[in-house]
């Protein structure tokens, strides 16, 4: 192996090692504006306290206990609130209008949540998907509540 080839291989290895770490730098999707009672963020399997001011990242789940309430505003001005005994997950949040890249997928796993559409729904209504265990909700700029009862 020539010296140049060896250097190239080493560089490729380093890039390969570095990129997963770079991919983990998820930009904030939003922030918790209201929190009371038992509330938590579930991030990569870890349960963190959901304090006012805490950032919400893509792939985070938000969970409320029997006395918990949460209110979140996302970067595109989407707003979400959770009643007690509820759980949602922000599966996808992509807000880059200048590149035409817009997506928002939220899953309501159980309980009761309110949703007020933001800029993503205004710029690209089809890029918004609210999922429940039994249905998918598409929106045309709106405000709604979703209740999910699971056995």
């Amino acid at each position, binding site marked *: 192996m020539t010296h140049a080839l060896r250097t190239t291989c080493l560089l490729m290895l380093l890039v390969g090692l570095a990129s997963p770490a770079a991919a983990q730098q998820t930009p904030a999707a939003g922030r918790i504006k*209201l929190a009371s009672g038992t509330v938590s963020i579930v991030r990569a399997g870890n349960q963190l306290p959901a304090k006012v001011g805490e950032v919400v990242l893509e792939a985070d789940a938000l969970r409320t206990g029997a006395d918990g309430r949460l209110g979140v505003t996302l970067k595109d*001005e989407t707003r979400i*609130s*959770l009643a007690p005994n509820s759980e949602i997950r922000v599966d996808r949040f992509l807000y880059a209008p*200048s590149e035409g890249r817009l997506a928002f997928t939220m899953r309501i796993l159980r309980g009761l949540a309110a949703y007020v559409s933001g800029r993503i729904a205004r710029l690209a209504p089809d890029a918004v998907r609210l999922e429940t265990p039994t249905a998918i909700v*598409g929106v045309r700029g*709106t405000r*709604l*509540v979703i209740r999910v009862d699971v*056995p």
Partner: protein
Amino acid sequence: MTVKAFVIAALAILFASACGPRRVDTPAPVSRSLVVLLPDEGGGQGRATVSNQSGSVDLAAEHDATEVAMNQKPAPPRTFAKGDVNLLFGEVLTSLPAAPQRFVLYFQFDSDELTEEGRNLVPEILRTVGGRVVPEVDVVGHTDTTGTPQGNVQLGLKRAAVVRELLLRAGLDSSLIDVRSHGEADPLVRTADNVYEPRNRRVEVAVR
């Protein structure tokens, strides 16, 4: 386990199930979703489509609702009474954060100089920031469709930087501000390409 022990255990289970309380045929509990459409806070009315593999239902009027059981098509829409909406959902709706507030600042013709009306919005922007629990301020530059999309992203950034400077000078904490450009991709007034439109040459400040 010996064969004998196994036979005894099997017989015991059979006996217990035959003589236990008779099973009543109630349907197994399944997941259900309820979607209720609400009027916009500004007074308008949006719409929603609720669908799955089995079917689809449109909700178009205030308090239209549908229920969807697992593997069933969404039920035909029914309309909730206003009192029921308040009773069932009033509390979760009060947990929604305050609506973001948006200010539009325009630029003078062919310039990165703000109009006086634009500059005069600054005190109100700062007051709004002061009233928020966890304030966040987006300063987003926009252009019309004259020029290239890439050039307009740059131009939008330049305009946003002017407004950022103005807000900093007025005393806003720089850590709250996020500066971006949407270029020509997010117009106030939709136009064809290469159309001069002063209403699209602007910076929008959104306070969340």
